[in-house]
């Protein structure tokens, strides 16, 4: 029961309170780049969720079973980025084989998941928070993906409506998106008192 409680709290905290995009500024590039339409945003969120889950679990295992016992933590970053690049390659091949239309519409953004800070960021945070059980690491990884998907979908919804609004000329495009994101983080700050 106790473990279940910890896992649930961990999940909620990474989705809402420590949302990677809105409080840790990770994954801002796709957040600004892909969030024009809801369906694209959702597809991107799903791809990121998959990659982040896979790489979160793999990097935790590599870190605990290989790097720490042999005192090789200097190699940490190089290993992490290799795992992520491999996972992205896997997703790319899978999507190209089974969902060709989706592959077409993603274009360059699919390989760019490799350089999505949210993924490397989560692997580093798992390491930094000293998560000691594989299940907890897995739950955090999935939660990070869900949080990313949620943030990018909310943003896409707002931006679809933003197209109909008369924004001052100099603020059109990226500036107004950033200001909107700022207001969104303010809303998410309301969650911060939820878990002590």
């Amino acid at each position, binding site marked *: 029961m106790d473990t279940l409680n910890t896992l649930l709290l961990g999940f909620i905290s990474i989705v809402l309170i420590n949302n990677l995009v809105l409080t840790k*500024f990770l994954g801002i590039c796709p957040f600004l780049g892909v969030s024009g339409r809801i369906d694209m945003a959702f597809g991107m969120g799903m791809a990121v969720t998959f990659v982040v889950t896979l790489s979160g679990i793999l990097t935790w295992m590599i870190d605990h079973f290989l790097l720490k016992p042999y005192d090789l933590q200097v190699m940490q*970053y190089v290993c992490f980025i290799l795992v992520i690049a491999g996972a992205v390659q896997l997703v790319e091949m899978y999507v190209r084989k089974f969902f060709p239309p989706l592959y077409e519409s993603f274009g360059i953004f699919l390989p760019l998941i*490799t350089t999505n*800070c949210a993924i490397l*960021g989560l692997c580093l945070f798992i390491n930094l928070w000293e998560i000691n059980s594989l299940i907890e690491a897995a739950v955090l990884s999935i939660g990070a993906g869900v949080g990313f998907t949620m943030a990018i979908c909310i943003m896409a919804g707002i931006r679809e409506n933003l197209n109909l609004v008369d924004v001052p*000329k100099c603020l059109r495009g990226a*500036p107004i998106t950033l200001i909107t*994101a700022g207001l969104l*983080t303010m809303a998410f*700050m309301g969650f911060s008192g939820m878990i002590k």
Partner: protein
Amino acid sequence: MSQTATPALGPTFTAGLWKENPVLRLLLGMCPTLAVTAALKPAITMGGCVIFVLICSNIVVSLMRNLLKPHLRILMFTLTIATFVTIADLILKAFVPDMSAALGPYVPLIIVNCIIICRAEACASKNGLVVSVVDAIGMGLGFTLTLSVLASIREILSTGKLLEVSVMPSGFVPWAAMGMPVGAFITLGLILGLVNIITKKAS
């Protein structure tokens, strides 16, 4: 290939400062821009790390540009960058441990900073050593200056101080929100808007 059209060094250097400023004009490297600019000191440290990594990776990429296979090049770039980021991280941990703790995971996150991969791809893999180094210095300085401006605004408004020195009049009430994520997003949004106005006036 580099001998046929070597870009002039002066324009290459100044391009990074304003015309192709990585943050303000190309919207690259947004994560560190937003994350480490709550105060000036971490922002400058971050800028220094990025300059170091950018110069080293541009040198290496430029030297091995004729050996690269197209489908493996991004992987090679990333591995080169990861190596130098590890070096920068160890140097920070050894000499300025408090700064290293304050920056936390954002130092290793330089690996996935789009600016560095973008410069490796757009400049270093096509140009000779000298041009690549000059380009790296220009881009790195442009990035650091932008970070410093953003960090100064946020630090002054959120604490009334700049680098621990009070600069605001005594009756000033600090705006706590400027130190939080909200302040980062909105300040950067407004700065980008301002840059849009300036470029429109100039053209």
